[in-house]
């Protein structure tokens, strides 16, 4: 439940931020009539993400249980790679995302193509949405309880929507920079758990036959089948008897990526491409 809540809160705020920037820019330039295109694009993105999620879920049900383990294992590791890349990307872009989106809106309006505006909204929202879909699918592969996972996810989105409305009306005092730093660290902690779980699933599928010795067994303390054990497994990758490769990869990932995320300076952004003016003026010849 906490897993899905944290994921949808973080990703939901990213989506809300993108929509707020788009709508806010149209509002400030007196083009409220184009709000429709933005919402249409967001709707298209939501539909695509739901379809992808349903497809992943159906695919994993159709397969034999041992194949499912492998499928989930690969999805988890793929989700880790994507999430890590996105956490760093978000850190780098946090300041530039607004001006970039505005430039794209100008381009779309300048071209006079409403379809382009819909597409811009759909692709900006869809990128965050697909990330959410993959993250939730990877997490649900280990989550014990079905309903609470859904409730947690919905709560996160609802809270993110409130934050989005607050951002749009300028009333929200939400400190965005600390939010993305803290939630970035949360994402890295959740992803580290997926590293360990991904290795375990690949082992259970038979793809990795030897994952090393298991130095300890804490099952008597917190059983992996207990509610607390499953909760900690989904959130932190708890395993009552982890294999050496799980332990090593977990800590390498967690410490290495968290340190890089917190202490490496954000890389210089590539130079902004020149924005074509909306109305071309006759050039001096």
């Amino acid at each position, binding site marked *: 439940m906490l897993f899905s*809540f944290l994921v949808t809160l973080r990703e939901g705020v990213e989506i809300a931020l993108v929509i707020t920037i788009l709508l806010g820019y149209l509002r400030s330039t007196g083009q409220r009539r184009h709000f429709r295109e933005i919402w249409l694009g967001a709707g298209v993105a939501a539909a695509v993400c739901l379809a992808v999620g349903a497809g992943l879920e159906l695919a994993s049900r159709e397969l034999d*249980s041992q194949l499912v383990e492998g499928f989930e294992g690969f999805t988890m590791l793929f989700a880790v790679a994507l999430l890590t890349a996105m956490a760093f990307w978000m850190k780098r872009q946090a300041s530039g995302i607004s001006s970039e989106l505005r430039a794209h809106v100008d381009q779309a309006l300048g071209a006079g193509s409403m379809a382009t505006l819909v597409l811009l909204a759909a692709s900006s929202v869809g990128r965050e949405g697909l990330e959410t879909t993959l993250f939730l699918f990877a997490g649900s592969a280990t989550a014990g309880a079905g309903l609470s996972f859904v409730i947690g996810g919905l709560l996160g989105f609802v809270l993110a929507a409130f934050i989005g409305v607050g951002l749009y009306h300028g009333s929200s005092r939400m400190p965005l920079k600390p939010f993305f730093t803290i939630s970035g660290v949360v994402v890295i902690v959740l992803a580290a758990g997926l590293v360990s779980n991904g290795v375990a699933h690949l082992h259970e599928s038979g793809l990795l036959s030897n994952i090393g010795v298991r130095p300890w067994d804490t099952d008597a303390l917190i*059983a*992996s089948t207990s509610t607390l054990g499953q*909760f900690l497994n989904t959130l932190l990758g708890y395993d009552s008897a982890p294999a050496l490769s799980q332990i090593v990869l977990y800590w390498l990932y967690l410490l290495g990526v968290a340190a890089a995320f917190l202490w490496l300076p954000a890389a210089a952004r590539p130079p902004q491409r020149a924005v074509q003016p909306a109305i071309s003026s006759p050039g001096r010849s």
Partner: protein
Amino acid sequence: MSRVIAGVLFLVAVFMLLGTACGGGGKGRQVAIAQTDEGCTPQTVQAARGEKLTFKIQNQGKKDHEFEGVNGAKVPEVEVPAGRTRSVDYTAPKQNGTQQIKCYIPNGSTTMISVTVGG
């Protein structure tokens, strides 16, 4: 900044409480399952309708085992590493019938354990 951190910690605490409060799980009648590299025993288990069972699974082999309900049997999946013991709670359905548990080594021997309910 510190208020944001305090808020996050508060939420984590709330969810931890929610997570543990819903759990628990009463221990049912113990059923011992033995795993070796050749397979699992016993292959049949009797249960009354709605009876709570606790499978005590002991892996006596050298390879890690998987234990999970299949075809709708509500036995949570558990990995039993070589030489270890794990417990799994299970509640038999309220109707007569047969349920199946798959006990296997990935890429190795597979044993289907039938749980006969009622009868």
